[in-house]
Structures are given as structure tokens and as C-alpha cells.
């Protein structure tokens, strides 16, 4: 790594945080356009969203204008301060996730030593915002949605963290950059050409992580908190215009962040076979590779979302506590045994 330019710490951090702030809306726009407008319209034979303007690109602008011109409504009974704060808390949790997502050897806002542990901690903050939104809306459907969200997110946070443990044991670090390096320098039966992406050795953890992430993101088989047919709209039922847009942006921004975490932990992150792990060129090529991997993983997230029916509340809880958690514990034990033996 050669230093091209040296700035004081606060300037560097300021620029990086500004970039991260700009990236969140961009990533959610990419996901909304590619998957929500194009892919869902084709999969579910919906007419409209996929052909406004050239390749359906004008739909985004139409949606933005629609959201911005809507009136900012507070329910009469609502607790105004909490009501206004809730979307900010949810989006704040998303923003904190982006702080540690690495896109190259140096292309990261802050290379935290606690890495993935920090990601799990800040992603759990969004529940707080959802509970605040559900309670302060003064609407029983909203409150039910908030409570469902809390119950679901608590249940699925455990398999999520336990699945990550397998990767952490194998990489011997929590740091996301070092997890990438561990995969890049790994070998599969003595062959190091493509490194050792942990999806091969930790496939069970990958599956559990993706299922739990689907639940954390409240995407469709697990979308009881917002179930339109039961709860009208769940916790964001009373939100209009820009405040709703904040929730919407946080949902897709977090989906992008979780896809990024999965590609860092299981698919080798920003490393490209054939390059040194600290090659400066990877700071330029890395973000592109990451974007490709993230879009691949988001494709699976949204594919499941658009094709599966919703689970029942009791099925959801049973699945988390009786299937996913025992499986992820077994994965930790197995990984531990292999780590000691080999």
C-alpha cells in the first residue's frame, strides 16, 4: 500500500462519511430499479413499473416526485417527537452499517477491529426505530406491526450472529478486511488460485445467514411486520411522503449492506484472483467486484421475496428457535472441531 495523499484524520473521515451518506440513496435506487421495478414486474407479470420511459428508468423519477409532493401528515393522537424520530433511527442504523463495509484494501470508512460484531450490533438498532414508529402512530395495526417486528428480529438475530461465528472461527478474526485477506490467502486442497471463499467450507453458515438476513430485512417469507393483507401496512402505516421514503430507503439500503456483508464473509469480498491482497489497483477495481457480488446476492434475496408466500407467525418463531439456532450451533461445533484437528 502506497500513500497517495495524506490528509489529517478528521478531513479523511469527513470525506469518507460524506461519501457513505451519498452511497446509501444510490444503492437503494439501484436495488429498487433493478429488482423492484424490473425483476418483480417481469416475474409477477405486472404492467407499468418496468416500461415507463426508456427501459423503465423514468419510473424512479415518477416515484420520487410522487413521494415529495405528498402532504406531511401526523395522526392527531400521535406522539409527535417519537413519530418524527423513528425513521431517522432506522436510517441511522443503516448508515452505521455502511461505515465498515470494505470495497478495497483502503476503500473503507473505518476499518474497525470489531468489524462484523459491530455490524451485528448496529443492525439491531433498527428494531428500536420500528418499535418507536409502531407505538407513536396511535394505531393498533401499527403497534401490532411493531411488536411483530420486534419479536421476529430478536428471534432471527441469534441465528444471524451464530452463523457469523463459523466464519469468525475459520478466519480467526472479527475484522472484515482480515476476513477478506484470510479468504484471499486460503487454499482449497493446496490450490490457491481462487483463494478459499468461505462459501465452500461454511455453506451451512451461508444458508443460515441468508435466511436470517431475509428475516432481519423483513422481506417476504418473513414480512409479517408489514403484512399488507393482515395489518394494512404494519409499523409504517401512518407515514406519508418523505418520512415513508426514509423507511423505504433504509429497507433497501440495509438489504444492500447485508448483501455486502455476505459477499465479504462468504464470497471473498473485493479480492480478485491473481492480484496481491494489498495491491493499490484493488482500491479501484474492488468496488466494481463488490457491486457485482452484492447484486448477485441481492438477486437471491429479492427472488425469494417475489416468489414465496408469507409464513405464519408461529411457523416463523418455530423455524428460528427449533431449526436455525440448533443448526447454527452445530455448525459452530463442527467448525471448532475442524479448526482444532487441521
Amino acid at each position: 500500500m502506497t500513500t497517495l495523499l495524506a490528509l489529517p484524520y478528521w478531513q479523511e473521515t469527513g470525506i469518507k462519511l460524506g461519501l457513505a451518506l451519498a452511497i446509501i440513496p444510490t444503492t437503494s435506487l439501484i436495488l429498487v430499479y433493478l429488482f423492484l421495478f424490473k425483476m418483480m414486474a417481469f416475474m409477477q407479470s405486472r404492467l407499468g413499473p418496468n416500461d415507463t420511459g426508456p427501459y423503465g428508468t423514468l419510473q424512479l423519477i415518477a416515484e420520487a416526485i410522487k413521494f415529495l409532493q405528498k402532504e406531511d401528515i401526523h395522526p392527531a393522537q400521535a406522539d409527535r417527537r417519537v413519530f418524527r424520530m423513528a425513521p431517522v433511527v432506522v436510517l441511522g442504523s443503516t448508515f452505521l452499517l455502511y461505515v465498515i463495509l470494505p470495497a478495497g484494501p483502503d476503500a473503507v470508512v473505518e476499518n474497525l477491529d470489531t468489524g462484523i460484531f459491530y455490524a451485528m450490533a448496529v443492525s439491531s438498532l433498527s428494531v428500536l426505530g420500528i418499535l418507536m414508529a409502531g407505538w407513536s402512530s396511535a394505531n393498533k395495526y401499527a403497534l401490532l406491526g411493531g411488536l411483530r417486528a420486534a419479536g421476529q428480529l430478536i428471534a432471527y438475530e441469534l441465528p444471524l450472529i451464530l452463523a457469523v461465528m463459523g466464519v469468525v472461527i475459520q478466519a480467526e478474526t472479527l475484522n472484515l478486511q482480515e476476513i477478506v485477506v484470510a479468504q484471499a490467502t486460503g487454499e482449497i486442497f493446496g490450490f490457491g488460485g481462487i483463494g478459499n471463499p468461505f462459501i465452500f467450507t461454511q455453506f451451512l453458515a451461508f444458508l443460515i445467514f441468508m435466511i436470517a438476513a431475509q428475516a432481519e430485512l423483513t422481506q417476504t417469507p418473513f414480512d409479517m411486520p408489514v403484512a399488507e393483507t393482515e395489518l394494512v401496512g404494519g409499523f409504517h402505516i401512518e407515514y406519508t411522503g418523505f418520512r415513508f421514503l426514509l423507511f423505504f430507503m433504509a429497507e433497501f439500503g440495509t438489504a444492500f449492506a447485508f448483501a455486502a456483508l455476505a459477499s465479504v464473509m462468504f464470497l471473498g469480498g473485493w479480492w480478485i484472483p491473481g492480484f496481491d491482497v494489498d495491491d493499490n489497483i484493488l482500491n479501484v477495481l474492488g468496488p466494481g467486484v463488490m457491486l457485482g457480488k452484492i447484486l448477485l446476492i441481492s438477486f437471491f434475496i429479492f427472488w425469494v421475496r417475489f416468489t414465496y408466500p408469507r409464513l405464519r407467525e408461529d411457523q416463523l418463531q418455530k423455524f428460528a428457535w427449533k431449526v436455525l439456532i440448533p443448526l447454527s450451533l452445530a455448525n459452530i461445533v463442527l467448525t471448532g472441531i475442524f479448526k482444532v484437528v487441521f
Partner: protein
Amino acid sequence: MVAQNIFFGILSAIVIVSALRMVTTRNIVHAALYLVAVLAGLGALYVLLTAEFVATTQVLVYIGAVMVLFLFGIMLTKAPLGNEMEMTGKQWPLAALVAALLGGVTIYSLLNGFGSDRLVTDGPVYRTADVSDEVFSTYIIPFEAVSVLLLAALIGAIVLARKD
């Protein structure tokens, strides 16, 4: 060191104000949200002390799990929206006395134990790996004891929740 002191002042002010508001507010959900602010402020103070792992654990355990369960429980049972309720119990002078005593003992023991010692500003930075090395070697017995305690609590919860 100046920047640290300024941020320490700001964070302490946030924590103290939130703590006071927590015990004086008349809305139980607001009280819980102020408690979140207190815990988040403490987490930020841990970051200032370069205890990154402790700060992350604080966020994950206290805000992400304990406070969410608190709010979940409050909202599931009683969470009056809008109308204020009397939340000050009859025994508040006694509670204030106990809190003052506890605070006094803690402050006294800290002052007595450390006196005029100052935190080394350019000392070694303890990474997460160092923390885990300590936990699993020097402090292995307390760690195991806490694990057994948690297991007992878990079994107790299951026994209470079982219907048969």
C-alpha cells in the same frame, strides 16, 4: 487530549440530562427511550476510552436486546399514548436514598482505589484479540461462573414458562 475532553463533556451532559429525564418523565415509553439515550451515551464514552469491544457489546446487548425487550414488554402490556400517568411511587425517598448511597460508595471506592492516577494517553491499545486472550486465560473461572449463572437463569425461565 483537548478533543477528547470536549467530547467527554458533551457526552456526559447528554447522559446526565437523559438520566434525569428518565426518572422525571411521566410517560413510561419516553422513560425507556431516555434510558436508550443513557446507554448509547455510555457506549460512546467507552469508545473515548478506546474500549471498542466493550462499546460494541454495550450497543448489541443493552440497546439491541435488553431495551428492545423492555419496549416490547411495555407495549405488549400497557403503553398509554398521550395521557400522562403518575409514575412516582410512594417509596421514592427511600429509592433516592439507596441510589445516593450506591453512588457514594462507588465514587468513594473509585477515588480510594485510583486516587490521583491518570489514564496513560499513549499506552498500548488493547485489540479485541487481547480481550479474548485475557477472558479465556486469566479470567477463565469468572467467565465460566457467569456462563453457569446464565444457564441457570435460562432453565429458570423455561420452568416458569412451561404450562404442564
